[in-house]
Structures are given as structure tokens and as C-alpha cells.
């Protein structure tokens, strides 16, 4: 019997919730739409991340093209060669950066030459145009060239390409190669040639940056054993073994970070929607308090009254979750297109259950959670309200604190689940909380200031417009938060993009290098200098480079440190081939932090080197510490003489290790020269001459690098814009929701004003002034917050001077304010069109 009563009781609650919602369904749908886009963003990103992980796992072999690979950046030594031979490599590759020339139009370009032999790839394909171009080049000496490069230089199969000392016919264009993406080949496009012709190019000289790869087609191989036994052996010989599993793991981790960023961007949109829900439900419940008091008066318990409205909110949350999830599923197809340039493979779209459950659950939880603060009022409302309005009991402080703790805890758990890092999750929650608090504080402060310094002598419309900002049921706080967050997001995007671009910017002065010539052999220096001068260009730097590896740090052998699991020295230090130089003076971009700069080596002392501060930190070195280098097989004892701060952000030649004059002059070395080309034409002419004269010299055109960086940033900002779109659109929906929620009150007030003789023009002015104030303050606060955060980013992260873009001030500020005014004015359209009596009756 009791059970029956309980069931009928629950049924009654749903019935009452439905009855009450009937009259307000448009408003409830508007609340719901606040969270729909946020959910859609979260679900689409979640689905995309899942698909990406599944694709990486499924395509791991195709991503590598082999089961495993051995890599080394020098000709394999005897030990490494033994391992390669014992494992029986099925294909091999040598790759290096080089200048190439196109005789057809005298074009020159820095490319990544990949000399291949064997049946690589064993998984996936090298896609070419024509389709058999790759097979063709393996049978006859030819080259396949990056498709974009062919287009740029208007080349066709049958034309030729000059690589070092040889000229090869172009067999076709290469569209994709396992493991590489469009972005990775933008600086140095790929050119594939047969391995057997590499030597004839005469490009592999001392100092050349090259990489040897040995591919294995052994599906039955015990990859775990290879990683555990062979890899440490190779590691000691400066070689590396990668299996398709470890590569896909690494790739997965890399894209996990991208996923985390996108997830957070989606989450911000959702949070913005939550603010909308909280504010709209607050006004909604305020209007329901009288009815709740009546219900309590005729016998409804506190729990029943609370549950009726909880059911309403939970239902709109659930519906929002379902609709948002459906939109998210539809949208997920767009994300791979947005990220196409950054992905090394085509992501096959599929639907997995977990993101769908997350989306629907999130809609339900987030709606209930953020509506709890206003909802709890229904529990505490006194039935005495039926007799005297305004007597409703206040919500206890304990209840408010408990709700705040629950909201923070759930947000933290969700963020932690997204980021999988407690500290980052906490930082994110604090950051979001701080931004919300600043906007909330600013809105409250503005209301106080207007109240305190109210312009009593102002015009009627000005006074009414200002009054609207702080009178009961005002939307000032929620609108300023919604507008502020939206503007903050898009402005930060613009400012940050500016910082990144200015970082890569080239000063167009004759004394700044914009062309760097690498791999110049000592006997080529004169010829290179002559070639530069004959093109009417200056020699800005002629820097000698000596490559070496670390042999021991603080008397500990690097080979021992590599297997020492307790060492905190960063791994890259132990495997890196350092390109060092020697000179007698500091560069403009350097500053001594510790120790003393030694200009010339004193033969009676140990060699005193200068190291950069980041190297000192990663290698845990300080002044006076002994370091032994392996310079082409010869061990050289040194001590750290000084630690320098180096401005790495400068696109000039910087070094982490600098020797004094008088020690490395006779070591095997090559040179780097820099020059300045006044125009791209001058640069192209010099490059043509240089490739003819010294084909092995690599030329980096910083103008091209800048173009590539700009292109990458444009693509990245497209992705960020795409994510910001969710927040901005959610902001607009929250805006419309907030404005509409107060519609009836506003209409009633405007009608009363009209009844008392106010003209349409005056009502329009009052409303326009109110919303313009909200728009301008919200967007200004958002831009200022973005300015501060971008300034901090420039100062602390990018270490760049920050010159803010004018666009947020000149475009966003007026545009957003106008949008807010339009939405606000649309609210009183009815009043202006209808007679006061008609509207008053409707409002009643």
C-alpha cells in the first residue's frame, strides 16, 4: 500500500512538473538551449578524441609503414650495424635537408630528400600521382616530388630536378607518405629518390644533418623484447629503436594534449551555458515562489515543492543533453576537416557509446547543479507568502556553502577527468573562477557606483536606462559575465596570435639576417662569400660550427647516466649532437648570468666553455663543473666557465655551447653564413647561383619560414576560432535567454511608462541605453581581461614585447555592444507595436 502511495506520489510530482511547465515551455526551451551548444562541443570533441585514439591504434603500422624501425643520425657504427644485420632489415632510408634546383624555371628550394630502398612501406602506401610513380622511380633513377611544390614551381612529370651533383627526371608527385602530415612538410617539402643515387648527389658531407632509418617487416617479432633488450643497446650507441606500438603511443599522447585543449575550450562554452541556466532559473523560480507558497499552504511538503521544479530542470537538462549530443555527433565530422593539416592520417569517423553517455549525463548533471542555487529557494519558501509576499524564508548559509562546495567539487572532478592532471585541473578551475569573480565583481561595482553617483540631473531616458541596471530582477551581472567571457575568449585569441606572429617577425633592416646558409665546408667558404657578394648582398656572419656529443657530465659517464633511472638530467642532453661554435665575444642576444666570459683559451688551463642557462638547468651544471665532450672521436676535457642567458626567441643563430678562441680551430668543422636579401627576387637569384656553385649548401630563407609560421598560426587560429564559436554562440543564446527571461517585467514597465505618456522614442532610448551600457561594459571588461592575460603570456611565456592588436577595440567592442542593443530592443518590439491595454492584458 505504502509502495503504491509512493508510486502515485512520484507520478503526481511529474504531473505537477508537467502542468507547471506547460505555461513556460518556451522559456524552459530557452534555458535548455543555453547548454545545448556546450554539450555539442564536448561530445564532438570527445567523439573525435575517441576516434583519433582508435584510428591511431588501428593504423599504428600504417603510420610507421613497418613493424619497427632503427634510427640513427650518423652512419651506423659497427655495433649498430651488427644489430641491424642480425635483425635483417627489409628496407632502409637516408634523409637530409638540401637545396634543389629546377632547371625548367631556375627555381630553387630547400627540401627534405628521402633516399629509399627496399619494399617500404610494408603497411599503408606512398600515394603518388601517377599512381605507379613510386614503383617507377625504384626501377629507373627518378624522383617523386611533394605535390604542393610541383604546383608552386609549375612542374610536371618528365621535368627534371637537380639534387646536388645529379639531375633526375620527375616521375610524379607524392601526395602522402606513412607517418607525415601536411604541416611537417611545409618548411621542407619531401622529395623521394632511390637510395642508390644518394651517394652520387655528393651531398652527404661532414656536418650534414642526416638520418638513417632501417625498416623491418616482421609481424611476428616480439616487440616488447626488442624494446627491452635491443633498444638499450642501441641507445648506448646513439641509435634508437621504435616499434609501431611505441610510435602510436607517442602519437596518441601528442594528440591527447590537443584533445585536452579542445575539451577545455568546449568546457568553457558549457560553463558559459551554465551561467545562463543559473541566471534564467533564478528569475524563473522567483516568479514561481508565490505559487510554491500556495502549494505549501494547501499541504505540499518542502520536498514535494522542491522536487516539482527539480524535475523540470532535470528534464530540460536531459533534453539539452540529448539534443546537444545529437548535434555533437553531427559536428564531429567537421573536426577532422578542421584539424586535417595537423593529422598524419585520415580519421575514420565512428560513434562510440561513452561520449554519448557523457553528453546526456553532463546535460542532466550540469543543469541540475547550476540550477541548485535558485532551486533550493523552493525548499525554503514559507507558506506565509500567501498572506504577505516578501516574507519568504532565506536560504541558510550552510545550504549555500554546501551547494557551492558540491558545484566546485563536480567541476573539479569533471575537469580532472578531461585533463587527467590534478594540478592542471585545479589551475583551470581557479582560472575560470577568477575570471568569473572579476566579471562578477566588476558588474557589482558598476551597480554600486551608478547608485552612488546617480546623475539626478540627467535626462529622463538616461536616468531610466541607468536605473534598469540595478533595480530588482536586473540582468546586469549575468549579462556582463556572458558578454565578458565571450569577448575575453575571442580577444585573447587575437592578442595571442599577434604575439606569436611578432615572435616570428623579421625586421626588414639590412643588418638583420634573413638568409642562413648551412653546411658550408671550410674549402667552400670563399666561394660562398664570393657568390653572396656578387649578388650585391652583405656577409653578416661567418660562424664556424663543430659538432660534438657529451661524453661525461660531472665525472659521470653519459653511457652510465642513460641507464641510471635515478638521474634527473634531461634525456635529450644525453643523446643530443651539439652544434657548437667558438668566438672571442658575446653576441647581442646574450648576457652572462654566472661566471666569467673567456675570450681566448689559456693553454695552461682546462678549456672554459660558456653554456646557455637552459642547458645548465637541464644538464644540472653550474660554473666550475667538469664536462667532457666527444669531438669526432676525440675526448676534450672542459669546465663550465660561464652561464649565459640567450634570447632564443630571436630568429638568429644562437648556440647553447660556446668555446673560446684558440682551441677548436683545427677540429673538423663547417661554417654557417648569414646574409640579407632586400627582395625575394634578389634572394631567389642568389639561391640559384649558390645551388649551381655549391649544391651541398643548405639555404634557409627566413621569409619563407615566416610565411610558413604565419600559415600554421592561421590554421591553428582557425581551429581555435572554431572552438571559440561555441562559446560565442552560447554567449548570444545566454544573452537572448537572460533578456527574454525578464521580458514580461520589462514589457510591463515600458507599458506603464507608455500609459503615463512616454513616447516610443523615449522607451527605445531607455532600453537602448540600458543594453548599450551592458554591452560596452561587458565587452570592455572582456577585452581588458584578455589584454592582461595576453600581456602575462607575452611576458612570462613568450618573453616578447606585447603590442596589442587594435581589432578587439575597434571591431569587437562596438560590434558586440550593437548586438546586445539589438537583442535588447527586440524584447520591447511588442510594446511599441501594440496598445498599452493589449499588452497589459497579455502580461497579466
Amino acid at each position: 500500500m505504502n509502495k503504491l502511495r509512493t508510486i502515485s506520489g512520484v507520478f503526481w510530482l511529474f504531473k505537477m512538473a508537467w502542468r507547471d511547465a506547460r505555461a513556460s515551455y518556451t522559456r524552459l526551451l530557452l534555458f535548455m538551449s543555453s547548454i545545448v551548444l556546450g554539450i555539442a562541443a564536448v561530445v564532438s570533441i570527445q567523439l573525435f578524441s575517441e576516434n583519433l585514439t582508435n584510428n591511431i591504434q588501428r593504423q599504428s603500422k600504417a603510420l610507421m609503414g613497418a613493424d619497427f624501425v632503427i634510427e640513427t643520425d650518423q652512419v651506423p657504427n659497427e655495433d649498430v650495424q651488427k644489430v641491424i644485420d642480425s635483425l635483417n632489415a627489409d628496407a632502409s632510408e637516408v634523409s637530409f635537408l638540401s637545396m634543389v634546383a629546377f632547371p625548367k624555371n631556375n627555381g630553387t628550394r630547400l627540401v627534405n630528400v628521402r633516399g629509399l630502398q627496399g619494399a617500404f612501406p610494408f603497411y599503408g602506401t606512398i600515394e603518388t600521382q601517377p599512381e605507379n610513380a613510386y614503383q617507377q622511380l625504384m626501377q629507373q633513377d627518378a624522383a617523386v616530388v611533394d605535390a604542393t611544390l610541383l604546383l608552386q614551381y609549375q612542374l610536371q612529370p618528365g621535368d627534371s630536378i637537380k639534387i646536388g651533383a645529379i639531375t633526375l627526371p620527375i616521375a610524379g608527385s607524392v601526395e602522402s607518405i606513412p607517418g607525415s602530415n601536411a604541416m611537417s612538410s611545409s618548411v621542407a617539402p619531401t622529395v623521394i629518390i632511390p637510395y642508390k643515387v644518394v651517394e652520387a648527389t655528393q651531398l652527404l658531407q661532414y656536418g650534414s644533418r642526416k638520418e638513417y632509418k632501417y625498416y623491418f617487416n616482421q609481424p611476428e617479432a616480439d616487440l616488447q623484447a626488442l624494446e627491452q633488450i635491443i633498444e638499450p643497446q642501441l641507445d648506448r650507441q646513439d641509435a634508437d629503436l621504435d616499434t609501431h606500438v611505441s610510435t602510436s603511443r607517442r602519437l596518441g599522447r601528442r594528440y591527447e594534449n590537443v584533445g585536452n585543449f579542445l575539451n577545455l575550450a568546449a568546457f568553457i562554452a558549457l560553463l558559459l551555458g551554465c551561467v545562463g541556466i543559473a541566471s534564467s532559473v533564478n528569475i524563473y523560480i522567483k516568479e514561481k515562489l508565490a505559487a510554491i507558497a500556495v502549494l505549501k499552504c494547501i499541504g505540499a511538503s518542502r520536498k514535494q515543492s522542491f522536487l516539482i521544479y527539480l524535475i523540470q530542470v532535470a528534464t530540460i537538462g536531459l533534453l539539452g543533453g540529448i539534443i546537444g549530443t545529437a548535434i555533437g555527433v553531427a559536428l564531429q565530422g567537421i573536426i577532422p576537416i578542421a584539424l586535417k593539416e595537423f593529422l598524419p592520417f585520415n580519421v575514420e569517423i565512428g560513434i562510440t557509446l561513452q561520449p554519448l553517455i557523457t553528453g546526456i549525463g553532463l546535460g542532466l548533471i550540469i543543469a541540475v547543479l547550476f540550477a541548485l542555487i535558485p532551486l533550493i529557494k523552493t525548499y525554503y519558501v514559507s507558506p506565509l507568502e500567501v498572506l504577505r509576499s516578501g516574507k519568504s524564508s532565506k536560504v541558510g548559509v550552510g545550504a549555500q556553502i554546501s551547494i557551492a562546495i558540491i558545484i566546485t567539487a563536480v567541476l573539479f572532478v569533471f575537469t580532472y577527468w578531461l585533463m587527467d592532471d590534478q594540478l592542471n585541473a585545479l589551475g583551470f578551475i581557479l582560472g575560470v573562477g577568477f575570471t568569473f569573480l572579476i566579471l562578477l565583481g566588476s558588474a557589482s561595482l558598476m551597480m554600486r557606483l551608478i547608485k552612488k553617483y546617480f546623475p539626478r540631473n540627467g535626462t529622463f531616458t538616461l536616468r531610466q536606462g541607468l536605473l534598469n541596471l540595478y533595480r530588482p530582477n536586473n540582468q546586469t551581472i549575468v549579462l556582463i559575465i556572458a558578454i565578458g567571457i565571450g569577448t575575453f575568449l575571442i580577444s585573447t585569441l587575437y592578442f595571442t596570435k599577434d604575439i606569436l606572429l611578432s615572435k616570428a617577425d623579421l625586421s626588414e633592416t639590412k643588418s638583420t639576417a634573413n638568409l642562413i646558409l648551412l653546411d658550408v665546408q671550410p674549402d667552400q667558404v670563399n666561394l660562398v662569400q664570393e657568390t653572396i657578394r656578387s649578388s650585391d648582398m652583405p656577409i653578416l656572419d661567418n660562424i664556424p660550427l663543430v659538432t660534438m656529443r657529451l661524453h661525461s657530465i660531472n665525472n659521470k659517464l653519459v653511457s652510465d647516466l642513460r641507464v641510471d633511472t635515478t638521474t634527473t638530467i634531461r634525456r635529450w642532453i644525453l643523446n643530443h649532437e651539439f652544434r657548437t661554435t667558438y668566438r672571442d665575444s658575446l653576441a647581442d642576444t646574450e648576457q652572462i648570468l654566472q661566471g666569467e666570459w673567456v675570450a681566448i683559451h689559456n693553454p695552461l688551463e682546462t678549456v672554459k666553455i660558456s653554456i646557455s642557462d637552459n642547458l645548465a638547468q637541464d644538464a644540472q651544471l653550474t660554473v666550475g663543473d667538469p664536462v667532457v665532450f666527444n669531438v669526432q672521436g676525440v675526448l676534450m676535457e672542459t669546465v663550465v666557465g660561464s652561464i649565459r642567458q640567450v634570447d632564443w626567441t630571436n630568429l638568429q643563430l644562437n648556440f647553447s655551447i660556446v668555446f673560446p678562441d684558440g682551441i677548436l680551430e683545427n677540429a673538423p668543422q663547417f661554417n654557417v653564413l648569414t646574409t640579407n636579401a632586400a627582395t625575394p627576387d634578389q634572394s631567389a637569384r642568389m639561391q640559384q647561383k649558390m645551388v649551381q656553385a655549391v649544391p651541398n649548401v643548405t639555404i634557409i630563407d627566413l621569409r619563407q619560414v615566416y610565411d610558413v609560421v604565419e600559415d600554421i598560426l592561421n590554421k591553428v587560429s582557425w581551429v581555435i576560432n572554431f572552438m571559440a564559436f561555441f562559446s560565442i554562440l552560447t554567449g548570444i543564446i545566454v544573452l537572448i535567454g537572460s533578456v527574454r527571461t525578464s521580458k514580461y517585467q520589462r514589457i510591463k514597465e515600458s507599458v506603464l511608462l507608455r500609459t503615463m505618456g512616454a513616447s516610443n522614442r523615449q522607451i527605445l532610448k531607455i532600453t537602448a541605453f540600458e543594453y548599450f551600457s551592458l554591452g560596452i561594459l561587458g565587452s570592455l571588461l572582456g577585452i581588458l581581461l584578455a589584454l592582461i592575460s595576453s600581456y602575462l603570456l607575452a611576458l612570462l611565456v613568450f618573453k616578447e614585447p606585447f603590442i596589442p592588436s587594435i581589432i578587439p577595440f575597434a571591431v569587437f567592442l562596438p560590434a558586440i555592444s550593437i548586438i546586445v542593443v539589438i537583442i535588447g530592443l527586440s524584447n520591447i518590439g511588442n510594446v511599441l507595436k501594440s496598445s498599452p491595454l493589449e499588452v497589459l492584458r497579455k502580461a497579466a
Partner: protein
Amino acid sequence: MSKILKIHGLEKTYTSGSKELTVLKDINFEVGRGQTFSIIGPSGSGKTTLLGLCAGLDQPNGGTVELCGVDLSTLNEDERAALRNQKVGFIFQNFQLLPTLTALENVSVPLELQGNRTAASRAALLLEKVGLGDRMDHYPSQLSGGEQQRVALARAFCNQPEILFADEPTGNLDEETGEKVIQLLLDLNKDAGTTLVIISHDLDLAARTQQIIRLKGGQILSNQPTSTVDYE
């Protein structure tokens, strides 16, 4: 005659800033079952506060209220709500219908709260009785003031209450409509044998009840049968 409402030493004070305002002081009276009873007094005399305390909508600062044999101070808010649902009916000056519910739904809510499966049919019967059989599906905003108060009457009698509190039941109605509503109220009350407590400043209305309490400044000036009241 057994007593349905016993008020003893009732006090109510409100705090406004640092000031304490005594609204009711040392109120004592009893109402017998089936009796009709009026509480009259000028504005600010404490009538509405007294009604709120009698019906368990508010809690006194001193004294006791025994309603239907239950000391209200021993009940929590939900228990008081349950008592109201089972044994009390209300009529308010501004009708207090739920705006999102139809007339029929408004009337059936008290019975639905009890889990009564015949709520709708009983509500329909009562609406027929108050002459609104053809307006059952109308929302309050679609009804006139008199019609709304008739719906409120039907709601008040729907759960067959032992006692019915009416706060200025004609306060928002014109004279003619008010008279009709009062006649209906008294007829329904007679049929159901319910105890009726009316709060009003309308002496003519009070004169139609059996007992009158006069309140002034939060205290009882007089408590006497209507037949002995000197209207001068």
C-alpha cells in the same frame, strides 16, 4: 461542543533592524466545531498574522495553538503542511490560484496531494456546484475575479476540511459578486458542517457568523456571540 481551535497566550513579534515590533499580545480564544467565527479589526490590528498562526503557516514567539486536537508547536513544517492538507481549507483575498493550472487542476490538487484517485471527479463535482461546470479547463487568467474566487471556494472544500480559514474573501470583488461568493461560501459551509473562521473588516459579513472577535493593536478587544455585539 468540542473545540477545534484553541489559542492560548499567543504572542508574535517581528524584528525590524534593532527594533522589536509586537504584532499580537496575549491572545486567548477557542472555536467550537461547526461554529462560524469572525475576526475583525482595522488595518494593522494583527488579523492576518493571527490567521497565519492559527493555520500553522507561521510560528508564534509565545503561547500555543491547538488545531484539530494537535499542538502545532510539536509539528515541523512538513507535518503542519500535512495537517493543513487533511483538515484545513483556505480562501484568500487575492484568490491565490496556481496560474499554470486549469480550474479543475487547481481544485483537485489538495486531494491529489492525499493520493486520492477520485480527485478529478470530486473537483469536477465541486466546480459544478459553484457554477463553473463549463469553465473547468480554463486557466485563472481566463476567469473573472468572481469566478476565480469560486474556484478557490471549490478548492477549499475539496478535501472536506474540518476548519476553513477565509482571509478577506470578498476584498477583491465588487459588492454584487462579493455577496454571491459569500452566500456560496456559507451554503457550502452549511452543507459540509465545516468550522468557518473569517477574517474581515466588513461588519456586515462578520454579522453573518455566530461569534466575533474584535482585534485592535494586536490585542483582543472583545470576543462575543454576534447576537450580543453592539454595532454602534
